[in-house]
């Protein structure tokens, strides 16, 4: 009985992701598949961000940098070196992980607002740097030759395949998130979040734990980046390193509940749902950003631990189930 309950903390978010993946299959509409792709991408990125932001308590404001790095790495290999999507995705993830490792060694020494500022700086530096490198297209970026999709049976089939890979990555991100949360390593991260100095006294090697949490939270965005730009067909600096989008993922994590497995998943679904509604509604279309801002403000002021955190506080008996 006890084990069954514990595993529910994993099953619940997995069910949400599975439902998202199956939704376009049943509805059969191409539009729904696009929407589901966007939400699944958000689930994967928000869940990864949650490892450093929610579990470890380090506000990575420019986390989108890993999405861009993976995207550029994968895209360069596919368009200039003729790699296929699978090794390109692996390379994108590996490159993001490597950069996170090197960066983490340096900037994770900073705490609080200083760390947040440094991640913004890293993202903006990368954005400006990529625009100056001619071998990856400089400010114009790169295009994929339409022929590369032939390998996968045509553009239509490649699109289909990208969707299922995305669903797989989203599932993987949830499993990783759960595994970290329930492991001894994860407990160390939570201890760092609560009080880093105390955690070190209790035997958590904080610099190492933080670095590996950062690396872990960077790999999946790297893989997603490679896949996303493969589907997109072209890549530009401003599409790969958008600071605003980076903050949107923080909003998703906050909305659902930071530091929980289910939170970022619900947050991603909820945020994209609200955003989709605002963008298409005739009343809010023009001021959708302002309305989203008001919603964010209300969340920050009144339910700072997000939906899942609020439920856990309100109904303590759900704590075992909602991980």
């Amino acid at each position, binding site marked *: 009985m006890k084990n069954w309950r514990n595993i529910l903390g994993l099953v619940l978010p997995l069910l949400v992701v599975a439902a998202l993946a199956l939704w376009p299959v049943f509805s059969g509409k191409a539009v729904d598949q696009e929407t589901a792709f966007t939400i699944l991408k958000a689930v994967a990125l928000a869940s990864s961000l949650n490892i450093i932001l929610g579990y470890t308590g380090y506000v990575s404001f420019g986390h989108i940098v890993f999405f861009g790095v993976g995207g550029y790495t994968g895209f360069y290999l596919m368009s200039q070196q003729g790699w296929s999507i699978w090794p390109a995705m692996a390379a994108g993830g590996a490159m993001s992980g490597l950069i996170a490792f090197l960066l983490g060694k*340096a900037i994770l020494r*900073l705490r609080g607002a200083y760390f947040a*500022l440094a991640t*913004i*700086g890293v993202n903006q530096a990368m954005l400006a740097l990529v625009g100056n490198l001619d071998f990856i297209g400089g400010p114009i970026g790169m295009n994929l030759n339409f022929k590369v999709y032939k390998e996968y049976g045509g553009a239509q089939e490649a699109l289909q395949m990208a969707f299922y890979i995305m669903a797989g990555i989203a599932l993987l991100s949830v499993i990783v998130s759960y595994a970290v949360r329930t492991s001894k390593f994860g407990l160390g991260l939570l201890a760092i979040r609560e009080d880093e100095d105390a955690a070190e006294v209790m035997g958590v090697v904080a610099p190492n734990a933080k670095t590996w949490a950062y690396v872990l939270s960077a790999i999946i965005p790297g893989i997603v980046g490679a896949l996303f730009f493969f589907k997109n067909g072209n890549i530009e600096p401003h599409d790969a390193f958008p600071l605003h989008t980076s903050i949107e993922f923080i909003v998703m994590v906050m909305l659902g509940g930071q530091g929980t497995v289910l939170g970022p998943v619900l947050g991603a679904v909820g945020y994209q749902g609200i955003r989709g509604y605002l963008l298409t509604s005739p009343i809010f279309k023009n001021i959708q950003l*302002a309305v*989203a*801002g008001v919603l964010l403000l209300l969340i*920050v002021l009144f339910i700072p631990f997000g939906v899942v955190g609020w439920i856990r506080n309100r109904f303590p008996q759900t704590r075992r189930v909602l991980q």
Partner: protein
Amino acid sequence: MDFLLANLVDGLLIGFIYGIAAMGLTLIFGVMDVINLAHGPIIALGMFSIYLLTTMLGLHPYIALILVAVLGLLLGIVIYIVAVQRVIDAPHLSSLLATFSVNMIIIGLGTAAFSTAPYNLEFSLGKMSLGSVTLLGSRVVGALVALLVTAGLYFFLYRTRNGRYIRAVANNRAAAELVGVPSNRILALSFGIGTMLAALSGGIIATFFPFTILAGGTYELKSFVIVVLGGLGNPVGALVGGLILGLIEGIIPTFMETTWVPVVEFVMFVLILLFRPSGLFGAKQ
């Protein structure tokens, strides 16, 4: 050589204006430990206020600037009461997101009202020549206004009662409260002054550069770099940081392509955060 000299002077003049934008950001951080992510949109609001006041009411831009300062102060106090007050003691993430939501609200409404098309103030003070260097009049006056504002801020912080209160709260809020400083009022005032400086810098920039509602973002990022250069929470450092950034922007294009400027700026930004977190002039840790 003349080219370099002209660039240097130009950079220096702009640097004063960057400086007051950054002073606003650093004042807010120093007093309440909040990084104001609505800084950029407020700079943009300063630009558009000048535009509206001069085109619709026919005011002279420099007179309109006074009105912009008053409006900026009031806006800042409103933002503080609505968005910042409740999260001031919460973890950093809360105050970052609260000010970011203000950012989204301003940009959202601003885009609906003005679209993202560029605007331009029809205003010129001609050119003046200093030896071999030719300067735009509006930039020289802009730099002078920025200096005046800095002097005013200095006088306010060091010679008035409220200014002393602000410094006391920045130094130690709990202790200031113990000796009877009305800390909440002082925090609201500090936030107001911070936004006032942002709006003023936007207004000055609008007198010589075209602008869009999104233009503030660039200056916000520049303000981050400057604030870190000068030490977070140090207004005098911010002015010097502004001048340094202006000089860098003036020098780099003479031997590198302009597109490398942001690379240098942000790499420098991260390095200073890592190795001199209290700024170039702060004490070594």
